[in-house]
């Protein structure tokens, strides 16, 4: 067995990126993800890679756009206010079909908010904080190992779909340490030379763009993108089920909150309460079908988020005709512990 490493979630993202053969990192400091640029500034150059501290989050996102346009695996990271600044570039990457990887270690908002954990950026990540009809593939790790694994996945998926992928963590995931088992993934980039920019040698020049002015061109382009999102929905749904089989109540929670709720559920199980957890891992595509089948099986639902109610809409949409989900929002600014969720779960169970 490979030796386990004991690392922060932020560092796990970096190790995952290195394993996925990320060659360039562009970033700008912001708490609680500074370990990422700091790690990359030390480790990437050693491995022949490139670290650039950009002048801003906007510049970082656009450096990312440039690097991936040349076919190289690259990444940027930030936290909430910085991610807001990247929205234009993210929309451009989606429109230009560029495989950038973007990490958001969500902090409290709106505005400057605080530097603690929050899930207030769910909508921004999944519904497109930028303009136009596009979707990011959004992965929400709940453990440090998952932060590592999903970062590797993120790169592979970005290149598979030529679409930006977001890792959505939070201040808890970024700052906590857990052991991880490193991997040595096989990276297949054989397709890249078919589209990347590397000088028009012995071939016509290539254009990477998102402008479509000719009659019907933007419509066709939007349809093409929609097909990709459809394919993602078919192939990339990820979630964790925990004690759902005999559960009366399914708690739906993602990321750090998902894992914290797990502890609550274990405790409530010991007290004989039939409660289970559905933890979406891919937030887009959202695990609709499993939720639907749980709804059809007559379960009750409670969505728990570290915000005032965002994913709950996706849960409700998934189970629509068959069930209604309760909602419990842990407020940004307050650190969540398993105790916080006991009563809300019991309340929903009793209804």
């Amino acid at each position, binding site marked *: 067995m490979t030796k386990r490493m004991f690392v922060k979630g932020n560092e796990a993202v970096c190790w995952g990126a290195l394993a996925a053969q990320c*060659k*360039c990192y*562009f970033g700008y400091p912001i708490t609680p993800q500074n370990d990422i640029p700091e790690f990359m500034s030390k480790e990437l150059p050693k491995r022949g890679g*490139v670290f*650039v501290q*950009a*002048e*801003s989050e*906007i*510049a*970082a996102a*656009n*450096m*990312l*756009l*440039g*690097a*991936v*346009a*040349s*076919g*190289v695996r*690259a990444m940027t990271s930030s936290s909430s206010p910085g991610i807001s600044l990247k929205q*234009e*570039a993210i929309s*451009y990457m989606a429109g*230009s079909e560029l495989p950038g990887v973007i990490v958001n270690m969500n902090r409290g908002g709106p505005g400057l908010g605080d530097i603690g954990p929050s899930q207030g950026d769910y909508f921004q990540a999944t519904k497109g904080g930028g303009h136009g009809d596009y979707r990011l593939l959004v992965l929400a790790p709940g453990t440090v190992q998952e932060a590592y694994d999903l970062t590797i996945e993120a790169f592979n998926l970005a290149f598979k779909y030529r679409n930006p992928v977001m890792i959505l963590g939070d201040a808890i995931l970024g700052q906590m340490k857990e052991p991880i088992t490193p991997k040595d993934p096989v990276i297949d980039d054989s397709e890249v030379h078919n589209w990347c*920019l*590397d*000088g*028009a*040698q*012995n071939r*016509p*020049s*290539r*254009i*990477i*763009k*998102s*402008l479509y002015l000719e009659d019907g061109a933007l419509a066709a382009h939007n349809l093409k993108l929609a097909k990709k999102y459809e394919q993602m929905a078919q192939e990339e749904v990820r979630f964790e089920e925990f004690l759902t089989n005999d559960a009366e109540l399914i708690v739906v929670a993602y990321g750090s909150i998902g894992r914290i709720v797990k502890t609550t559920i274990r405790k409530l199980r010991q007290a004989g309460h039939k409660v289970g957890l559905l933890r979406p891992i891919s937030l887009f595509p959202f695990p609709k079908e499993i939720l639907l089948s749980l709804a059809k099986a007559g379960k009750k639902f409670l969505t728990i988020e570290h915000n005032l109610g965002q994913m709950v809409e996706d849960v409700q949409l998934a189970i629509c005709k068959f069930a209604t989900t309760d909602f419990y929002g842990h407020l940004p600014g307050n650190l969540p512990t398993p105790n916080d969720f006991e009563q809300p779960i019991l309340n929903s169970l009793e209804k």
Partner: protein
Amino acid sequence: MKEKIVFPKPKVLADSPMHYCPGCQHGTAHKLVAQTLEELNLVEKSICIGSIGCSVFIYNYLLVDTVEAPHGRAPAVATGVKRAKPDKIVFTYQGDGDLASIGLAEIVHCANRGELVTVIFVNNTVYGMTGGQMAPTTMVGQKTTTCPGGRCREREGEPLKMAEMIASLGGTAYAARVAVNNIKNLKKAQKAIANAFKVQVDKLGFGFVEILATCPTNWKMTPLQANKRIEQEMIPYFPLGEFKNCLGENQ
């Protein structure tokens, strides 16, 4: 007795007509860049970073690999490309709204870092594409659709002199301002553009050329009047010349 073509059209320039207005010197600038790429034999290693402005379709005319940068961000995109592919020749092509207004932080930092990229900056003192609004380079007194009474020094400040500002930065290896309004200036422009690429080839630092250019449409002038304005109004405020040239040191 044989005939040869004088200043033959560069092959990397497409044959199709360009969408620019009559007398618009974006066309001239494209041609000069094309000539340089061919002369220095860079065509097949070049990656162009297009920007948002009237030249947004540059990829239809200049047949090199091109990526479209969001408005103002071409220097950041160029940084990404060049760092990822250090053996390629990377250049941006930007207008004055793009480079000197929304993209000011990006151009200054790109130059200051000494990125090994070349920037072609077309200064026509106006936002061409969006219909003639005020640019940071609009001359004092010049009327545009957003300074209908003429740019006012007190309210809107003086036009930014980008070539000088860029020349003052440590990472810059070459910075010049040129015009393409007459044959003398055209020849100097040609040379300046070549130098701005050479500093990249020789890895000396950041290369920058500001090209004073006409926008007859938004200046509401005929192409000939517009061309005269370059000489009479623009050059006196925006002096031509090389503001920094590190090639000498190493040549």
